[in-house]
């Protein structure tokens, strides 16, 4: 598809040698000058909307030079918020990864009634406003919430403390890994796993040596995506955090505090870290897409052989007995 397309446009570009070809291809393409107008408008739109804000962050961070930029991170509150954000992500990402793997395994490898409903329910958190996502936990565990009095009696703090922030973060990033893996695993089918099992691999071996190598890029992307969102979430975290400086401020909340105090250099410096995280996510996505495309092409030629060899490799131990 992609090749055909590039040939096509190459043909319109320098198809002078073959007049007939040019005429034929030109018929389904706009004149070159019109193409350039459309390209210019689209590029201008994307530039204004995407690149300008990004450049602004770095320009704002470096406004007073590199020294001021690095000095921003010496602020103890900013340092704390970086550490706190890392802890929140370190707890919530593995939990959602485990869930995503389990959900994708159940949904992609088995048929059961209510599968469609389950898939829709998993996507539910994406439809909920971040603010409402925070609010639901305030209504559960806050002072006036369902478990509020009981928690107060036992001196357990969830809202305006780390557990509440972790809960809100898990809720917000809940569907991400599952959403990446379900279509990927459905596409791969279950023949390879069935073959591995038939050849004597245990369930765990099948997962570890057959399924996981097939989905590793999807897992990586899902984790990076979850991590970026977990570290960057603002609305939900803002509602449950209470903005207690040096105690419950994540990096995005610290950015807000600094910005509202007109401390622009420090605010943009802290924001630049989150920008790097976002850009890293985009790079990983591009790499993963390339890998998936690459791994898909040879597989298409010999699906049976690759499945069999994977199964053989996986069950080499027990089958050789």
């Amino acid at each position, binding site marked *: 598809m992609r090749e055909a397309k590039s040939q096509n446009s190459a043909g319109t570009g320098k198809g002078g040698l073959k007049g007939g070809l040019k005429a034929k291809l030109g018929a389904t393409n706009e004149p070159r000058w019109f193409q350039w107008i459309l390209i210019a408008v689209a590029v201008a739109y994307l530039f204004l909307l995407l690149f300008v*804000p990004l450049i602004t962050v770095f320009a704002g961070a470096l406004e007073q030079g590199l020294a001021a930029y690095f000095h921003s991170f010496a602020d103890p509150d900013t340092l704390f918020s970086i550490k706190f954000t890392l802890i929140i992500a370190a707890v919530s990402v593995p939990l959602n990864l485990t869930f995503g793997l389990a959900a994708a395994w159940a*949904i992609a490898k088995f048929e059961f009634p209510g599968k469609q409903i389950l898939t829709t329910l998993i996507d539910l958190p994406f439809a909920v406003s971040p603010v409402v996502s925070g609010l639901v936990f305030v*209504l559960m565990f806050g002072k006036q919430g369902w478990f509020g009095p009981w928690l107060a009696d036992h001196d357990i703090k969830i809202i305006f403390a780390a557990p509440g922030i972790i809960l809100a973060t898990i809720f917000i990033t809940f569907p991400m890994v599952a959403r990446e893996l379900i279509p990927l695993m459905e596409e791969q089918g*279950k023949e390879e796993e069935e073959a591995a099992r*038939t050849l004597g691999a*245990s369930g765990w071996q099948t997962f570890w040596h057959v399924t996981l190598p097939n989905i590793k890029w999807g897992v990586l992307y899902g984790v990076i995506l979850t991590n970026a969102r977990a570290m960057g979430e603002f609305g939900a975290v803002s509602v449950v955090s209470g903005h207690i400086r040096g105690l419950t401020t994540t990096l995005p909340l610290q950015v807000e505090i600094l910005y509202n105090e007109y401390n622009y250099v420090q605010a943009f410096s802290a924001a630049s870290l989150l920008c790097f995280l976002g850009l890293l996510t985009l790079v990983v996505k591009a790499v993963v897409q390339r890998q998936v495309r690459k791994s898909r092409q040879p597989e298409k030629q010999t699906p049976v052989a690759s499945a069999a060899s994977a199964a053989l490799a*996986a069950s080499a131990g027990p089958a050789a007995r």
Partner: protein
Amino acid sequence: MNQSTVPAAPIRGGAAPAEAAAGKRRRYPSVIPGFGLTLGYTVMYLSLVVLIPLSATFLKASHLHWSELVAIFTDRQVLLAFRLSFLASAEGALINGVFGLLAAWVLVRYEFPGRGLLDSMVDLPFALPTAVAGISLCAVYSSTGWIGSRLETIGIHVAYTPLGITLALTFIGLPFVVRTVQPVLEDLDKEVEEAATSLGANRWQIFSKVILPALRPSLFTGISLAFARSLGEYGSVIFISGNMPMKTEIVPLIIVSKLEQYDYAGATAIACAMLILSFALLLAINLLQRWSSHRAKTR
């Protein structure tokens, strides 16, 4: 890839030949293990993290008396916030409907330097934390900002006006339209266009009568996704909106300010209204997607 060190577990693989021997009837359980465990875990985790907290919110709202609900939803400040949220989200989604379609078209159909970079940058609003987007949009479009100061000289104020909110929501919604239209456009069969050309149609006729109808379901889906996301958006809006009561307050902000005033009843009621709204939108989008995949099959 040699795991001879792994002790061979007792193998229940015997089920597979038995299944084959039993013929076409597929009553036997799958040879792949772990169904009970993974489904059980999925349902439990889903209930604990998502379903129970969401139901608890509705339960809390159900304690409210009708008169309280009426009072909350007829409050002028709340009504104006709903109106603003709807209008700004719709404007942002429609702007993306036009320019997102154009961007998808250019990225799929034309070759130009920097196309790959531009293509991967489309996902930036997904990847960039909303608070970061919020402060940088505000900095660019404020009266001292790079673009804002220039627009100010021709009398256009962006920051701290409804226009600024529309702008932030346009930023947030951009990837939804591009990413739903793009794959459909890539799969579009060029032969149909060639056939239309050979039958004497010009480029505009082909676009409006052949290409656009094929793209319509995905375009609607993208616009509704952008709209749904925009309604609940908070982080990227609150900086550029300025949050002036009755003028630039969006619905999520109303929820936050009610919470800050310990008005839990009001916050819960509005949150439930937003939940119902987003679930209805989710349902509509699912139907739209079914329509578009149905169209793709029949084509």
